[in-house]
């Protein structure tokens, strides 16, 4: 058994390192929705952003076709891009989640742009968001709200 110890420790280390990111996940069919989070909004007059990772463990691609949430009358997936040092942003439309792949929405790239806020997003709170997939259907996730300056999920 002593020979097993190094591999056991290594296994524990790598799995433990890998798992925090998988902690808050929702599974529907072959899709795993991981660590949704949002930044607190500053009032209601400007759009807020939410982030999430979508992992597809299946053999066929799925497509995120829409998003619904009571906190925003117009939630859309947008992409921030920097070209020649200039940042622009726009809707991406249907978003493919490749087979055996994943798509991460994170600051500096893809985000759920929550336009026409119906209520302020307050730090410490959470809201419900429904991701609508072509194959997997509707997936409800609970989105915790972190500080306005959060750059990732906070513990």
């Amino acid at each position: 058994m002593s020979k097993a110890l190094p591999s056991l420790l290594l296994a524990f280390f790598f799995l433990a390192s890998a798992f925090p990111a998988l902690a808050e996940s929702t599974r529907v069919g072959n899709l795993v929705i991981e660590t949704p989070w949002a930044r607190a909004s500053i009032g209601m007059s400007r759009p807020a952003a939410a982030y999430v990772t979508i992992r597809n463990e299946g053999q066929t691609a799925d497509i995120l076709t829409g998003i619904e949430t009571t906190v925003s009358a117009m939630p859309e997936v947008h992409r921030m891009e920097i070209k020649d040092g200039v940042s622009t942003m726009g809707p991406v439309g249907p978003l493919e989640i490749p087979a055996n792949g994943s798509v991460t929405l994170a600051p500096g790239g893809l985000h759920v742009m929550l336009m026409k806020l119906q209520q302020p997003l307050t730090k410490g709170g959470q809201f419900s968001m429904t991701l609508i997939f072509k194959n997997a259907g509707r997936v409800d996730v609970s989105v915790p709200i972190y500080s306005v300056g959060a750059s990732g999920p906070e513990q």
Partner: protein
Amino acid sequence: MKTIHLILWGAVAVGLILFLWLNIFQDASHLIEDGTSQNTATTFTPTFSLTDHQGNVVTEKTYRGKWLLVFFGFTNCPDICPTTLADLASVMEQLGADAKAIKPLFISVDPDRDQMETMAQYVSAFHPAIVGLTGTGSQITETAESFKAYFEKQPQESAPDGYIMGHTSAVYLISPDGAFIRTYSYGMSPEEIVADLEQKL
């Protein structure tokens, strides 16, 4: 015993792959952004006349004696602007006592929507040291030209009010005597910016 070993090493392999994948994946955007790094040797002294978020008329001379970290953006921007302002807040926190020598300026490229009160509400959400600057359309245009910064109103059907602002994404470093020193491209970590600033202070 052999089976247990195989299973454990299998778990190591899976864990290692997950570990590497998560780390590399999370770093990927950073690597892409490095391509936009704009460090230029050209020296110039930006000038401006704007209104701060407390209603004071300010110019580049107002801030002489301080190192300036200048970022162009707009408050309807939900992703890069909060990210950059949060990074600047983190830079100020990490600098500790040295932060007194630094003044972060957030200049709106969307003066139609970003009036003084809006700017006050926005910048104060990130850090008390950050100053929000806005002005008339021509003042903003002149400021951007002076910084060799770019911005553009882009029609976009789904955006609030039907437009977004494209804008230079880098943060400018200006010396205490007003000279342009360098830019920090988007994606540089607060730690990297702090390390660079501490060499200069």
